[in-house]
């Protein structure tokens, strides 16, 4: 709609001076902000292709002066990253699917006026966003009473349902006109059938957005791994990265596995290369879901 005001300006043919100044300011500031966003990525990529000698002598780079893929070869040779990748891919896919099932099954009935006790259930869920038991009781529940330590499901189950996402999904369902499902009711379809055959097909933007939020949560999590996982073969990517950032031990471990001398290992570029390998899929998938993003977020955040 604001584009219309733009076309009116064009009709006048002559650009007033405030338009020129405004354009100059706007384009410059936006470009600066985008550079600010991109510089860390440039640094990660450049340093990951730089030789260790140059990093030690000259420091981190925005542009590699000598191009080498040694860091990447070392990462792939040790294979540790594949294990971490496997854990993360499994938890991201299984987790997102399960979370979506639970979320949709809870959100859909809550969006229907005919469900009489929806307010009570809504409050039951909503209250957990206002008040929570905090770290220690949750920790005791999961490690002592449910015995989920060093179990891959501990990376999924404790974050299975996100109330915030669930309410966004509910608001999205509410925005669907009731007439759509009425016809199906008359034909004798039950609620589950209506959900899968009528509601879900028209909810693609909402489903895509919420799935993306869940997937991102699973992909980027390290918190539960830090609390509940000791077994290194169950480390997800992000926790693997954190250990790589923090401790020299994980680099030593890599030296042992590749049979290289510790000192000759390109530890700085390995770190950056690992980060690049981690964020790769996120950047890759992002354009595919981006088109649903705005509509999904907007409809979902309208209060219902």
């Amino acid at each position, binding site marked *: 709609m*604001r584009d219309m005001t733009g076309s009116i300006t064009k009709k006048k043919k002559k650009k007033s001076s405030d338009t020129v100044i405004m354009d100059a300011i706007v384009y410059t500031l936006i470009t600066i902000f985008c550079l600010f*966003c991109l510089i860390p990525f440039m640094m990660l990529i450049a340093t990951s292709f730089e030789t260790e000698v140059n990093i030690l002598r000259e420091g*981190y780079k925005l542009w590699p002066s000598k191009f080498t893929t040694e860091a990447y070869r070392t990462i792939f040779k040790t294979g540790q990253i594949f294990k971490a990748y496997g854990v993360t891919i499994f938890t991201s896919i299984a987790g997102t699917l399960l979370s979506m099932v639970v979320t949709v099954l809870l959100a859909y009935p809550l969006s229907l006026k005919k469900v009489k006790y929806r307010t009570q259930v809504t409050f039951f869920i909503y209250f957990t966003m206002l008040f929570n*038991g905090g770290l220690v*009781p949750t920790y005791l529940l999961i490690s002592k009473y449910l015995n989920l330590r060093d179990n891959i499901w501990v990376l999924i189950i404790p974050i299975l349902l996100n109330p915030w996402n669930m309410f966004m999904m509910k608001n999205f369902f509410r925005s669907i006109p009731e007439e759509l499902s009425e016809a199906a009711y008359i034909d004798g379809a039950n609620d589950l059938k209506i959900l899968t055959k009528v509601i879900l097909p028209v909810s693609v933007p909402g489903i895509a957005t919420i799935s993306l939020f869940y997937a991102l949560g699973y992909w980027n999590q390290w918190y539960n791994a830090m609390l509940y996982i000791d077994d290194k073969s169950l480390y997800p990517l992000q926790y693997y990265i954190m250990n790589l950032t923090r401790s020299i031990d994980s680099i030593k471990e890599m030296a042992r596995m590749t049979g290289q001398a510790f000192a000759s290992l390109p530890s700085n570029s390995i770190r950056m290369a690992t980060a690049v390998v981690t964020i790769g899929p996120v950047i890759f998938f992002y354009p595919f879901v981006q088109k649903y993003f705005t509509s999904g977020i907007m409809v979902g955040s309208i209060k219902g």
Partner: protein
Amino acid sequence: MDTGMIQEKMKNQRKGAPGIGKELIKNRLLYSMMLIGVLWTAVFAYIPMGGLIVAFKKFSYSDGILKSPWAGIDNFKFLFLNKDLFNITFNTVWLNVLFIVFSTSVSVLLALMFTEVKSKIYKKLTQSVAIIPYFISWAVVAMFLQGFLGDRGLINQFIRQLGGDSVAFYNTDTYWRFILVLLRIWQGAGFGTIIYIATITGFDAEVYEAAKIDGANRFQLISKLTLPMLKTTIIMLTLMSIGNIFRGDFGMIYALVGDNSMIYRTTDVIDTYVYRALRTNSNLGFSTAVSFYQSAVGFCIVLASNWLTRKVEPDSALF
């Protein structure tokens, strides 16, 4: 407080109200759909709330929550006499205030600028770039931060080039509020524009045309029309963030600061403190007392911010 009690109460409500069985039978498919979500919430949200009684116990891991001996309010006495309490409370609130103020300002400013861009390709490209950092985990941010702030990092290279001495950022607490705010803007400001841009696009075009005919220039359109109309959205989102002001961003702060005690003075928040207490201190009762204090005060703040919201904009109040 206890899960059992809440479920019991809900059951009683169900039994008590007329026609409750009828309703459950009539919509049995819909109610059973909700069952997994409700059960999950009962176990993973309500049981830990009950677990807060650990704060009143002299907890031993082998005895468990119920069998550990009571400690009265000893854990709380210990907490309120603790000199760290003021610091972690202050840092939690102050960092959140800084995050809210700066992220919101940058987001609104960016959104205003994005809507002024006419080139569709440029707009799409820059918006995508501005949102990307939102998808990067703090673990990765912690890693690239070393490439900027470390001794061989880009910033120290730059300082040395200008003839200055390297700055030991990881040993100097004074820089860290600024660093955290900057990273928060990097990560979230672009994503934050989505909702503002969508709001601005929804404004009535006729109002703008009328103002144009009256001779308003673009600066005036923004300051006299767009900003005032955007005010409600800004206030709403800010009030919602204020509700969470007593919750530190553990994911961000622990990933970036970790166990670097040199910079705790400006960065340690309640959540990181609780985690360290859990890990290093055998007295779980004490760390639970800190959580209890956080949850209780946080709850009051949510209620207060909602009360304020209802005064400002009744439609947007959460309850």
